[in-house]
């Protein structure tokens, strides 16, 4: 049971973490496209 609960915890943090990091990348890309537009 302990391992299963541990996996659930990793799943929660993992899915949230991946979305969080890629959301940060999303805003960084948006920012870079605005700062350095193709002329």
């Amino acid at each position, binding site marked *: 049971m302990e391992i299963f609960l541990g996996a659930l915890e*990793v799943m929660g943090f*993992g*899915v949230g*973490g991946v979305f969080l990091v890629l959301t940060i990348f999303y805003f960084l*890309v948006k920012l*870079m496209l605005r700062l350095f537009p193709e002329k």
Partner: protein
Amino acid sequence: MDKLQSLLNGFTNFTWQHGVMLLIGIVLIYLAIKKEYEPMLLLPIGFGAILTNIPGSTAVGEHGFLTVLYNAGIVNELFPILIFVAVGAMIDFSPLLKQPVTLFFGAAAQFGIFASMLMAASTNLIELPEAISSLLGLAPGEGLFSLKEAAAVGIIGAADGPTSIFVGTKFAPKYIGAITVAAYSYMALVPLIQPPVIKALTTKKERQIRMDVDYGVKVSKTVLILFPIVVTIVAGIIAPISVPLIGSLMFGNLIRECGVLERLSQTAQNELGNLVTLLLGITIGSTMAAEQFLTVQTFLILGIGLLAFVFDTAFGVLFAKFVNLFLKKKINPMIGGCGISAFPMSARIVQKMAQKEDPTNFVLMPAIGANVAGQIGSVIAGAIILALLS
């Protein structure tokens, strides 16, 4: 008489397990040559399995060349890192940069990693009778997978060989052969795994949704150069354990995009990639010794690995459908399935499916955007798992 005995050692030590493993090696080679399933990996893996399972083989063991390669390139994670340099040099991130929203599909499709980790962990909920436990070589009360091993099994869902090897080596070295074979085999089977899942979760009308090729966005050279640097720094600060993985991937990409290292870029894409793939494959094959490979856990790993790919695809598509609820200009939900890292096969499959419904529909560019986002997503997922469990 002793000399005759030493000549017959190979025969006298031959067991049925050796026979099965030699057969598995031959099947992998057959799949690589005849079916062209990831031949660059499956052929060396198959041959490595043969070299390892010949009784008394000196290719493995303290001074065996395969063991030397294993210690030099797998234990210290050098081979997967070098592969990432090559992969980074091959990837063009412009489709992603033109449509950064595809990053979210790269995140959503990593769900399979965690779902399959949970499945592997849930095998511990079944209490095995003592007789079966001892038959499986488990201590009384011991589960089939520890939490770290379950995570290593789940990482097959990254659909990304180097990440699977990187995490597997750290958390489940005894299952690295099964994990790698599952990861690469199912990547090769993506054209068979993904279409039925995508079709089951989308309507014909949804599959016909058209998308702008690039949303009219042009990406400057500066952004292409800055992207790998910024991603490395940000990911590294958030999860320092991700630095080798994301750093090598982005280093390869920087070589490609900088515009002044064409020769190095070509070398990374070709010579480096080919050489390390060759060594990686045969070395992984050497981990498939009969006593380690022919276990219940191996069969579970192969089964859960397949489900991981199904979960990845399903969650990616469902996420795209969810996003569509809030968008005026709808996204073709099949793009969500491309968030799986298997690059560029997944994007090609979705393009093919879109054109089957409407021959004039081109979704390849956004599909590739989601696909390369999946490459980043899988590395980040691997790094987060390492950070949480190390």
